């Protein structure tokens, strides 16, 4: 188990290093001189040279990468000249709303996915099965940004039940925060539930077909305890993996959902930074997104290993 954990952490570090090189290379490929972008139209050659030195742009590209990584590891992502704020402050402020949106989405997604996946598996090839799987396919086929607009129209504008935009931190006003996060979480949660419900169904069907379940059934164990005590425990293992694998998609969906509901999260920050050509912000935000995904996948894999004795033993 220890060897597995160490190997998995090692792989994570390698992936992060490669991803950081990709992010760095991408940002260096952006057309236009960053000095010109920061300083605008007119500036003296001395000022240019000084800023170039300050930003490390006078060094070789490899040196620049290592300086950037060393700074990132110290939590320094550069300075946003447009916002007059360190990028790390911008990133942290934007990270929290995205984090809460993702947590809300996961809760809504699982609350829909697990019951519908279980019902579909138990009542295979009935109206219940077709209904829940039809809902699942619709859930992940509806683009989140469109679904968000439709939900705003129905629940925000027409019925007036929920606020249509904005974000409040949970510690500032818990009920208001929950209220404002409901529609965005529902938007993204129904997408997420579609993916998880299908996996729950197929994985539960597979377990229900195994010999130990048939044996339990033969011994007279009733349907409910059979499913909840014996089958579900085993069936949920692949579900956990899928949640990890889909986390990147979820984060991408969060970018669009934030735009629809004007939530000041990572997605809005990144898109605004691209349009304003603030590449230090883009670089930091993209890297943070990757770290988020890779770390969640690491946690999921370690949880998986913990749940699955086969991996634990080897």
């Amino acid at each position, binding site marked *: 188990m220890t060897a597995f954990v160490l190997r998995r952490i090692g792989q994570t570090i390698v992936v992060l290093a490669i991803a950081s090189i990709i992010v760095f290379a991408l940002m260096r490929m952006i057309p236009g001189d960053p000095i010109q972008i920061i300083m605008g139209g007119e500036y003296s050659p001395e000022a240019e040279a000084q800023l170039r030195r300050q930003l490390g742009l006078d060094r070789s590209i490899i040196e620049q990468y290592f300086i950037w990584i060393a700074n990132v590891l110290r939590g320094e992502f550069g300075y946003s000249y447009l916002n007059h704020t360190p990028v790390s402050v911008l990133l942290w402020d934007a990270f929290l709303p995205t984090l809460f949106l993702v947590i809300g989405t996961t809760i809504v997604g699982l609350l829909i996915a697990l019951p519908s996946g279980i019902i579909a598996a138990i009542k295979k090839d009935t109206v219940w099965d077709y209904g829940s799987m039809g809902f699942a396919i619709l859930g992940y086929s509806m683009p989140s*940004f*469109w679904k968000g*607009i439709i939900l705003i129209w129905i629940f925000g504008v027409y019925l007036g039940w929920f606020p249509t935009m904005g974000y409040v931190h949970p510690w500032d006003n818990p009920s208001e925060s929950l209220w404002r996060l409901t529609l965005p979480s529902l938007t993204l949660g129904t997408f997420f539930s579609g993916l998880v419900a299908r996996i729950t169904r197929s994985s539960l069907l597979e377990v229900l077909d195994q010999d130990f379940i048939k044996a339990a059934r033969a011994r007279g164990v009733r349907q409910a305890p059979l499913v909840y005590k014996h089958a579900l425990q085993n069936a949920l293992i692949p579900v956990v993996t899928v949640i990890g694998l889909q986390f990147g998609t979820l984060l*991408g969906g969060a970018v669009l959902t934030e735009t629809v509901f004007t939530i000041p999260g990572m997605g809005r920050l990144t*898109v605004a930074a691209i349009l304003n050509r603030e*590449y230090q912000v883009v670089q930091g935000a*993209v890297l943070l997104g990757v770290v988020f995904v890779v770390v969640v996948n690491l946690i999921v894999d370690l949880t998986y290993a913990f749940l699955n004795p086969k991996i634990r033993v080897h």
Partner: protein
Amino acid sequence: MKASEYARLWRRFCRNKGAVFGLGVFLAIVCMALFADVLAPYNPFEQNYARIMEGPSTEHWLGTDSFGRDMLSRIIYGARIALVVGILAVMLAMAIGVTLGLISGYYGGLLDTLIMRIMDGLFAFPILILAIALMAVMGFGVRNVIIAVAIVSIAPFARVTRGDVLAVREEPYIEAARLAGISNAAIIARHVLPNVLAPIIVQGALRVSAAIITEAGLSFLGLGPQPPTPVWGSMIAEGRNFIVMAPHISTFPGIALMITVVGLNLLGDGLRDTLDPKLKR
């Protein structure tokens, strides 16, 4: 493959009602894109300020947008961009990803490690966020959207191909070909590739819908093909500003996008169950 084998696969495919429905939707969208000039009742760029944001009527079946342009015509032309981006991006990703997967799986060693670690690095990026970053590098426009969506889709093709090549590589007929003195390139092209093709096709079919959704997302954010190009994503974004007065502007392109994606997902699932039954869920 013999003709009888194709007939058997076709019969298996036809038994799956969802897949047949998906194929129908896909063919309808293809026809819509191909014959847009004939099918669209109006010029999709023609503005009519006397009739802005009108709801559905007998003249404009799906209403008009904030420039008085016919929504139905713009949705029909929008199918072109969606399909072109979806299909070309996936074909490009497939060509690069499969080549990398073949090299990686067949040769193994350092090359395998290098390629697969780069793929792991790419895989770590949330697809839309990487696509957004690529659009920042390359600039907006249809061609760049295709390239960006292709790059973010390479890693899954490389992984799927490599996994299957590893299994095929050990088969006795590959060993026999090697002993017969056939070159590695010829073995890969003639013996390895045909045997790993089914899961690649399945992956391709499933990826087209993801590519279309990614393109729509980029367009929604204003990073895709620029106005006045009729694109579903930017039409939805435009309608967002008029959701109270004219909800139809967002609703109809969204429905078109959803039907396309549902159809392609069902078609992809059907192809998977037909060509690769071991993956059947």
